[in-house]
């Protein structure tokens, strides 16, 4: 291996010329670092050729066993068409910066404007930002927004008691600074227990958070009622969902939702060890309290339609500690991928994909239910993508035995297994059912 960065174009000759122009003898002379804090050691990191680097990383990643995933609970696998990689991978998109010079960033700005527009249509609300990091941080941002927009004090936010633990931890970290307490309401057979929720609600609640579909894959049936309940207490109604589900399920705007959060990377990315794309959509009323970037339509000097980041006075680089959020770098490129995937599907394709999420889960649950020692689904609800099954065998054993057969599922209770089925598991379902039968009886 040669020394030096493979991506620095300098030759010994040009380096010498530049040093001379600057007026120093060596590169070391350029560093104005007091001697006591200088680093004179080595990191001990070996340099590699590109071929060696590729081989090294490929070799490590081959240690990820090729297990077939029936996993969901907030991170999902949908087929991503090749055109997404091809187009989003174009270096003008991939290597560009945040669009501070809109005249040379019209491409990305228009794509983000289209992303916002798609979310506005999917939610029936007014204003979508360009992204937050993921569903959990979007929920955290919603909680802080609920504080800022509330006219009277309200220091509690209510979340389902079945909320995924990681999401709750993130929410609590966002809530702690503004002094918000995270409380729960009970669930009833997978869905929100409306009576229990009503009981938990009081005028100190700034926000009620409901997921549809729920973390157990059930579809909520009382969203309007919940919306009204929240409204009665002046609490924001925050709904968690994703663009695939939103293509089919009740429109949040129609059931009184004030904010929609969730993970938009269900389109465009596939499994990525949890990398997500936080979507954040709300009412026009809260426009100036929205966290993150917003792309707006405008005109250029020649009178043509043009796009630009707008309302930046909400943001950290201008308002600093009074910003609506600290978010700066977000998930723009993931949003671009989502926009391309959604465009590829079109409205028919989106609805069809969403219906597939209903029918695959339903059909797989029915097949597992035929196995002795298995009851599926546990919840007497409609499901989206995933469902919970009760097994006579301990869930931990079922999960471990299935893994040995090459299938990964969640264990979510002592005898509860959660299973996710989308179009990507179509060709492996028979084997999965057979393996389940083997290990669950």
């Amino acid at each position, binding site marked *: 291996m040669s020394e*030096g*960065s493979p991506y620095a174009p*300098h030759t010994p000759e040009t380096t010498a*010329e530049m040093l001379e122009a600057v007026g120093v003898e060596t*590169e070391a002379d*350029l560093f104005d670092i*007091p001697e006591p804090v200088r680093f004179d050691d080595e*990191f001990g*990191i070996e*340099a*590699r050729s590109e071929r060696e*680097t*590729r081989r090294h*990383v*490929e070799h*490590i*990643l*081959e240690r990820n*066993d090729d*297990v077939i995933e029936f996993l969901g609970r907030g991170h999902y*696998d949908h087929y991503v068409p090749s055109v997404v990689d091809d187009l*989003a*991978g174009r*270096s*003008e*998109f*991939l290597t*560009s910066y945040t*669009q501070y*010079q*809109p*005249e040379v960033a*019209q491409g990305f700005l228009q794509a983000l404007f289209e992303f916002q*527009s798609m979310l506005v249509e999917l939610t029936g609300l*007014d204003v979508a930002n360009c992204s937050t990091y*993921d569903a959990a941080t979007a929920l955290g941002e919603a909680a802080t927004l609920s504080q800022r927009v509330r006219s009277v004090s309200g220091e509690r936010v209510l979340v389902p008691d079945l909320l995924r633990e990681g999401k709750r931890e993130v929410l609590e970290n966002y809530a702690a*600074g*503004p002094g918000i307490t995270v409380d729960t309401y009970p669930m009833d057979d997978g869905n929100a227990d409306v009576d229990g929720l009503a009981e938990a609600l009081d005028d100190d609640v700034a926000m009620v958070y409901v997921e549809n579909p729920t973390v157990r894959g059930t579809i909520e049936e009382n969203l309007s009622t919940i919306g009204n309940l929240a409204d009665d207490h002046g609490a924001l109604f925050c709904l968690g969902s994703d663009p695939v589900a939103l*293509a*089919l399920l009740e429109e949040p705007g129609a059931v009184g939702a004030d904010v929609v959060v969730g993970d938009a990377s269900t389109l465009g990315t596939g499994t*990525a060890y*949890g*990398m997500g794309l936080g979507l954040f959509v709300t009412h026009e009323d809260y426009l100036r309290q929205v966290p993150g970037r917003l792309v707006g339509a*405008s005109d*250029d*000097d020649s009178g043509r*339609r043009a796009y630009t980041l707008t309302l930046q*006075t909400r943001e*950290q*680089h201008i308002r600093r500690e009074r910003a609506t959020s*600290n978010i700066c*770098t977000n*998930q*723009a490129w993931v949003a671009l991928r989502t926009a*391309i995937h959604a*465009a590829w599907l*079109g409205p*028919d394709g989106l609805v069809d994909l969403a*219906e597939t999420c209903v029918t695959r889960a339903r059909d797989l649950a029915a097949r597992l239910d035929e196995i002795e020692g298995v009851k599926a689904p546990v919840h007497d609800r*409609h499901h989206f993508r995933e469902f919970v099954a009760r097994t006579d065998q301990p869930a931990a054993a079922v999960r471990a035995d299935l893994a040995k057969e090459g299938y990964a599922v969640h264990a979510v209770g002592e005898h509860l297994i959660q299973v996710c089925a989308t179009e990507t598991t179509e060709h492996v379902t028979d084997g999965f059912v057979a393996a389940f039968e083997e290990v669950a009886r």
Partner: protein
Amino acid sequence: GCGDDGQRDGDVGSDGDGDGDRGDGDGRDGVLPDDLTRDSLELPAVSEPEIARHYTRLSQMNYGVTSGPFPLGSCTMKYNPPVTEDLAALPTAAVHPDRPERYVQGTLEIMHGLQDYLGRIGGMDAVSLQPPAGAAGEFAGILVAKAYHEANGNDRSEVVIPDSAHGTNFASAALAGYDVVELPSDDGRVDVDALEAAVGDDTAALMLTNPNTLGLFERDIEAIADLVHDAGGLLYYDGANLNALLGRARPGDMGFDVMHYNVHKTFATPHGGGGPGAGPIGVAERLEPYLPAPRVRERGGKFELFDPADSVGKVHGFQGNWPVLLKAYAYIARLGDDGLADASAKAVLNANYLASQLSYDVPFGPFHHEFVASAGDQDAADVAKRMLDYGVHPPTTKWPEIVPEALMTEPTEIESKHTLDQLAAAFDAVAGEDDDALASAPTRTAAARIDQVSAARDPRLSWRELSE
């Protein structure tokens, strides 16, 4: 544009059959009761060839690092090697975060390796990869500091931040519930006397960028560290400018207790038009128990996730932006010690060389990876617009405010002398132009100057608000 053939209505529950192909209206019944579904979905219906042309055209209206020089100060716009993209796209990298650990040993090994690399590079004892961006790293780092103070029965309310710092420092400290104390600069650097006056029993931390946003190394770093530590506070290092120091100095050796790394700056993962990035944080040993959970460790040749003893919990729903972390790992593994040190050397050489070639005034110095020139009588924002007409990307403008009409310029190591000379020529050409030429710029770009005022006054943020 998108939607050449107009909107199409996705008939929910009746004849939806979209699978990426044109629908055929097969009259299938809905799969759910009507009261659980929406009535319709109006979105553009376009074919794949139209999509390909649409986004190809959009990409050509976008300036990236592969379009030309991109000397955006404090943004470290390096070349993003395609090999790291290829590696992140490997099917073996596409795993679900809830796979049992034994089935993601590869992913965990990469994460463990990156924790190790970052620790060595920053001089930090322990690293968490969870924060999905620099600001998230700041937030996580401040949460760790807060947890540390609280565990020591030491409830502090203030974070001190120099006026030249990135806006995220202020916002992140505030989000974590701290009051922000702004520290004035002295000749572009921390005013040590002012710092002495500012720190005290309420000081939870000082957040510092070093070299700072003017490209200046905080020479008094030892004194600064002593002041803060003596007051019981912690030292937070903002990693935005770490590309200036690789192999020359390490935050941990300067006395910093917490830091974040911007892998989408220093370690060449692509900015993606605004993310995804990753903002891992490193800490000194005594702060390790408070790091976000989970981290990765090796036990008997196997890699596993574990929760630090007194973890602040999570700042991302899963384990952060894994594909970005993977790209950063590959970049570091490619460059190694010599490559990283050379990257810094050439980045600093490039900044100093470019500064030496400009006719604009460049106050302060000596610079490291970036410098801040002053546009003088010209409006820095106009200068930037006019530079676009010369086919180059302009620097960051009007910030930091210490320099009037600031042109904050960071060429990074990837530019050749030849390109820097072209860039200097563009600067100089603009420096010689009058206000009219500047005000009417740009004229050679996909869009002319865009009206940002009316965009903000009358926000139109979706198709619904466009009438044409």
